[in-house]
Structure formats: structure tokens, C-alpha cells
């Protein structure tokens, strides 16, 4: 239930982020016992690189506290959609915070909004939509893969979000978003291999007073076809973009500073003829200087997807 609102202490059943380091964190369920493969109920022990955690011990602990592992320690954090995105069980490729933030901003999602999402996928984006629209709005999320829809539905329930979301198992490209949703949505988001097929359904689902549309596509051809369809149906403010987040690695670097001025002065006593060139080097005075620097990591995300946004203007006849 730890996604519903800010909490101070870990309660039984909460999803908790066990934070070991920037590159190592885990989402664990705060239950004292689990059922193993043989069907036996056993104490819930979670293994990490820094040893094991007896999960029972963290129930009742304040979020943000340090907890002891058998070979070290970690911090327990309340999950946010950002942390969840980094720890969730991947069922599909997921969209990350930089793209998601842009999607939420461009779709103008705020409490009270009615949002349609397809596909649900791993539910990463759904958690952001839900944070932004609750407690007064609603998310309708669609996936054509039945087990993914079921898993997502179950997850939302366990996260305390069931009241604000309806999960559908449905092929929206062929069948649309159900008649009940015609004219109901403030915003529609598509992450589909053929978004152009779902654009007419998005058109129907948006309110008569207009609304916003977004499609996320890895390939440019999908965006091209999607935009053709959007243009045909009278969408405007069509914008396509890429957003890439760049991390800066901050560190203190120690750099040698070499002095060459002394070479202008004659050597005092040393012989030069028979020693190798490197003798010079070893005698060269070297100091070091410290710099607080930042640089990009060696490998950056080069592409996530093309984001296409559009507005359905008010009062466009839907027949």
C-alpha cells in the first residue's frame, strides 16, 4: 500500500525499496513470511550483495532508516514511481523518468484527469499517471497480452491504487477503447507497434472539449504514419521530439602539473651524456592539483523513442 500517499513507517505488506547503492537497489515486500517452491511457509529472508536481510525486522521501521544486513547495511526507502521504475520486474521494455515526465507535462495530467494508456506493459508509466491524477481522476489502461494485464491489475491492487485504475485486456488497434469511454478522456497515451491504427480510437475517446495525445515510438516510420493519421483527423499542435537525460559523474580528479621552466637553466652538477632521456623525467619537479570535475559516463542512452504530441481542438465533430 506504499504507493498511495507519503508514509513515515513501514507497515506489513508495503513494497519497500532496499537501497544499497546508486546501481544496486531492490523492491521487496515487507512480509515476515513467504511460501517457498515446496509450498512451505518460511521466514522471508532477502539476499543482497551485502548479505541477507530478515524482512520481518524492517516492519515498523521509519522510512529513510538504515537497516543492518548480515555483511553490511542498506537504507529503506518508500517507493516512488521513479524508484519503482528502476526496480520493477521487467515484463516488457519500459519507458524511463525523462520521457515519462515529458509525457505527463505534455498531456497536462493533474488530479482529476481521465487518462487512457495502451499498452500497460510493465506498469511503469501507469504508476506515474496514477500519482499525477489521484485521488480524483482515473486511469484506463489497456494491454493485448492477457497475463500482463492480470499482473498489472494485481500489482495496482497490492500497491493500494486499485480505486483509481481500470485494467483492460483488449486489442485496442482493432477493437478500440470500449464505447463506454467515448468522449471521456482528457488524454490518450499510445505505446504500440502500429500507433496509427489506434489514432482513430483515441480521437473518439477524447472529450468533445478537446484533449491531448501522445505516442511513443522507437522507430521514426511509426511516428511518420502516426502523424499522417493525426493530421487527417484534425489534430493540431503536432510536435515530435526526443529527450535524453545525461548523467554527470562528479568526482575529484588529481592532475599532475609539470614544471618546464627549470629546463631553461643549466644543470648544476649532474652528468648528462651517458644517462638515458628518462633520467630527465625522474628529476622533473611535479606537483599535483585537485579539481572537482564532472563528466559524462562512457556510455549514454542514445535513443529511447520519439515522442509525438498533438492536441485535439474543441468541438470537432466525431462522426
Amino acid at each position, binding site marked *: 500500500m506504499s504507493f498511495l500517499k507519503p508514509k513515515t513507517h513501514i507497515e506489513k505488506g508495503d513494497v519497500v525499496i532496499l537501497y544499497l547503492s546508486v546501481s544496486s537497489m531492490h523492491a521487496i515486500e515487507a512480509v515476515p513470511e513467504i511460501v517457498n517452491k515446496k509450498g512451505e511457509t518460511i521466514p522471508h529472508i532477502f539476499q543482497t550483495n551485502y548479505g541477507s536481510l530478515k524482512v520481518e525486522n524492517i516492519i515498523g521501521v521509519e522510512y529513510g532508516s538504515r537497516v543492518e544486513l548480515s555483511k553490511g547495511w542498506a537504507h529503506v526507502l518508500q517507493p516512488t514511481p521513479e524508484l519503482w521504475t528502476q526496480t520493477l520486474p521487467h515484463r516488457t521494455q519500459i519507458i524511463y523518468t525523462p520521457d515519462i515526465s515529458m509525457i505527463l*507535462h505534455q498531456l497536462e495530467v493533474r488530479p482529476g484527469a481521465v487518462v487512457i494508456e495502451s499498452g500497460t506493459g510493465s506498469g511503469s508509466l501507469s504508476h506515474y499517471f496514477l500519482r499525477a491524477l489521484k485521488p480524483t481522476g482515473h486511469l484506463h489502461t489497456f494491454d493485448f497480452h492477457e497475463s500482463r494485464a492480470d499482473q498489472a491489475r494485481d500489482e495496482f491492487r497490492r500497491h493500494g491504487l486499485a480505486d483509481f485504475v481500470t485494467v483492460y485486456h483488449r486489442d485496442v488497434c482493432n477493437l478500440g477503447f470500449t464505447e463506454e469511454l467515448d468522449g471521456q478522456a482528457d488524454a490518450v497515451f499510445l505505446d504500440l507497434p502500429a500507433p496509427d491504427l489506434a489514432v482513430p480510437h483515441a480521437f473518439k475517446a477524447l472529450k468533445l472539449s478537446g484533449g491531448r495525445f501522445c505516442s511513443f515510438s522507437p522507430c521514426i516510420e511509426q511516428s511518420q504514419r502516426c502523424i499522417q493519421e493525426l493530421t487527417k483527423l484534425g489534430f493540431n499542435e503536432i510536435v*515530435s521530439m*526526443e529527450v535524453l537525460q545525461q*548523467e554527470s559523474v562528479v568526482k575529484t580528479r588529481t592532475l599532475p602539473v609539470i614544471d618546464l621552466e627549470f629546463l631553461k637553466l643549466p644543470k648544476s652538477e649532474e652528468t648528462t651524456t651517458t644517462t638515458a632521456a628518462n633520467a630527465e623525467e625522474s628529476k622533473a619537479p611535479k606537483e599535483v592539483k585537485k579539481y572537482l570535475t564532472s563528466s559524462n559516463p562512457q556510455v549514454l542512452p542514445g535513443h529511447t523513442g520519439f515522442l509525438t504530441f498533438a492536441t485535439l481542438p474543441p468541438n470537432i465533430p466525431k462522426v
Partner: protein
Amino acid sequence: MATETASPSIQLGDYIVIQRQKYTKLQKFGSLDTTATLGKETLELKSLLDQPYGSTFKMSVKETKPGKRGAQRQHTLELCSETELNSTREALGISSSGADNRDICDNGEAQSLKSADIEQLREECNESSKIIEKLVENSKTFHNRTEYSQEKYLRKKEKKYFEFVQIRQPTIRLMLDIFYRQDAEKIMGIRVDTLSQIISYSGVCGLGSYLLYESGTNGLLPAAMLNSIGAGTEGSLVHMHPGNVPQKQALLALKLPLEQQLRCVSVNLYSVLREFYQGGETIGSNLSVTEPTEVVREETQPETPTEDQPEAIEPSTKKPKLEEVKGEANKGPPRWQLENKRATALMHNKFDSLVLAAKEHPSSILQALLPLVKPSRPVVVFSTCKELLQETYMELKTSGKVTGLHLTSNWMRTYQILPNRTHPEVNMSGNSGYLLTGYTLR
């Protein structure tokens, strides 16, 4: 918002977004005499009253006055239907186009109409499509251009003569576009991707209590956060600023319900910190600290929604006059004291996240505000200066008070997607600014 389907109508006192093609402008519709200026065009706004937001109006030249930079035209506006909005290109029906531009010599004499002819045409003829038709007729090279080049020409002309404006209701998205395009410095250079991420990383939503320090964004940051907190929810925002009067233009433009507006408490950083550390003894001991909103609501109601807006727009240049201060004092404790009381109550309860966008070095401000944030809560620090955040990063890392530290910036580029002409836009914005994010520890 979830259930309304009809668009709200334009009212006096509203801030409106005027859109002419891709150009947008934020304008206060203060009275029936209000005019708006778009380049060389002046628009009389009175016919907007009570029309629904999202409507399109046609500009009709009423008179032309000589101005410093050429003629300034005054227009009336008339509500028009969607069918009038045909694309100029379709109206003209251009067909024959050269295969490439090898036969074009650009000697600057391609257009046989003189500029005086064009100006006259413009007064006589209300429709851009007609004007452009004339221009094309009198162009010696138009029909030899490539289709691409023809379209570029038409778009350029259409932009100049386009006679329709749309009136839209301000939203965070539309205002950010306007502010960033007009003068990014006034919103501290916070670009769309960065603002969107401030909202995400701070976790601001309908539940919780949030703390913001910003040194001047035209009200954009508090407006964006209050927008995410929502109407009819339980969230609240303490908005600290370094000046006399908070910058509030974007907040006012959103036209939020009063109950929502009141959940944003704007206070001076120094003043509220002194109140927090030492308050309760010197002043305002008659106020209930536990229920401050009730008390303040009555106090603020008369002056909140629209009337004091001109002052609120550019507060930094004006100092409250002594009379005003005295005037307020006569009625009881001045408003800023009441706001300080409300803020300190929230401060004592601690916050669910902290957003800091300072023109000053963030380090000392962070030191003062970090103790007010609960453990396991997000901290987001924005700066245009990476070097400052590098230092802050190292300080926080050493202190052990914040974990999951990331220093990030963004690369964002828009695309032109057109058949056979798809490419990234040739210009892009160079600066997203930098975000330092992390989570507080106990």
C-alpha cells in the same frame, strides 16, 4: 475537470492565451477596452467576452496608424467558424512545380509588387489567402521553384498575413512555452523537460505537504506545483522566495479555485525562518497556530483573485509604500505575518519533499531547509550553473543526509516529420539547466 465537457467561457479579469499560428502570448483581459499587441497588429479584445475558450476569431483591420517601425494596424475581432479555416495552400491550388532550383537566379527582383502596393492590398483585402494569391501571381520565380521551396514561401507569407487568432485558457504547458520563448531568464532558464522532471522527481501530487524555494520564475514553479497538487485534494505547498512580494503571474493566470489557491502559502525566506526559529514570542500570539488557514482565509479573500494582479506581476521592482504597510497594520497583523504563521505550522510538521531553484548558491539554503524534510523524501535542486551543483553534490554526499544522488541534464530536440522531408529541427535549445536529485535519510 474530469466530467466537464463544455469549454468555460472567457471572463473579464482572466488571463488569456492569444495564439496566431505558432505565436502565443499571455495577456490579461482586464477590461472591455483592453487591447493586445502582436507585432504590428493591435487587437481589440472586447468581443471575446463570454465566448468559449478555444474559439477562433478573425482579425479585421479597423484603422492603420503610422508607427515607429512602420504602420501599426488596429483590428477588431469576430468569432468565426471552423470552415473558414481552410489551408491557404488548398485555396490557391498550386500544382506545377519545378523539379529542382537550378534555373532560379535570385536577383532580388522576383516580386513585381512594390511594398506600397502590398500595404494597400492589405487594407483592402481581409483575407490572407487573397493577399498571398496576389503575391504569387506577381512573383516571377514562384512557379519555377521546387515544391519544397514553394511551400516554404507560402508558409512565410501565410505567417505574415494570417488573419485568425485563437483564444485559449492558460495552462502550465502553454505558459511555459510562452515564458521560455519570450525571456527564458525570467523563469531562470527552466526548460520544459527540466520542469517536467522537477515535478516527477519531487513527487508533488494531490497528497502531501511540499516545500519550494525559488528566486523568481514569474510564478511558474509554484503554479506548476500547485497544479500538480490539484483542486479538491489534500496537498499543500509552502512557497519561499527571497523578495518582498512573491512573483505570482502564472499562479493567477491558472484561475484556480480559491480553496486550491489558499493551499499555496507564499513567504519570504528570511522572515519565515526567523519566525520558525524564534516566532510565537514577539508577534501574533493571538493567532491559533494549529488552525491558521481559517484565520487567514478571511483576511486574504478580498484581495486575492484579480485586483492586485498588476502589482503581483512585477513585484521585485515595487516596494510596498509605508502607507500600505500602516494600513494593513491597522486592520490587524499584516498579511505576511499571517502567512508566516501558516507556513511555520507546516514547517513544524515537516515536508514530503523539497524543491530548490535558486539564483544564489544552493548550499546554504539547502542546509537551512533540509532539516524541514521528512526522511525518505525527494530533494530536487535546480541550477543553471553545473559547478554549484557539483559542490552541493559533494557536500551532500559527505554529509550522508541524502542518498541516491544524481546530477543530470537533458538533451532535447524536436523533429520536422513531413513526407520525404523528415529531419531534426536545425536549431535546438542548448541549456536544460541541471538537476541534483536524491532522497533524504533519517
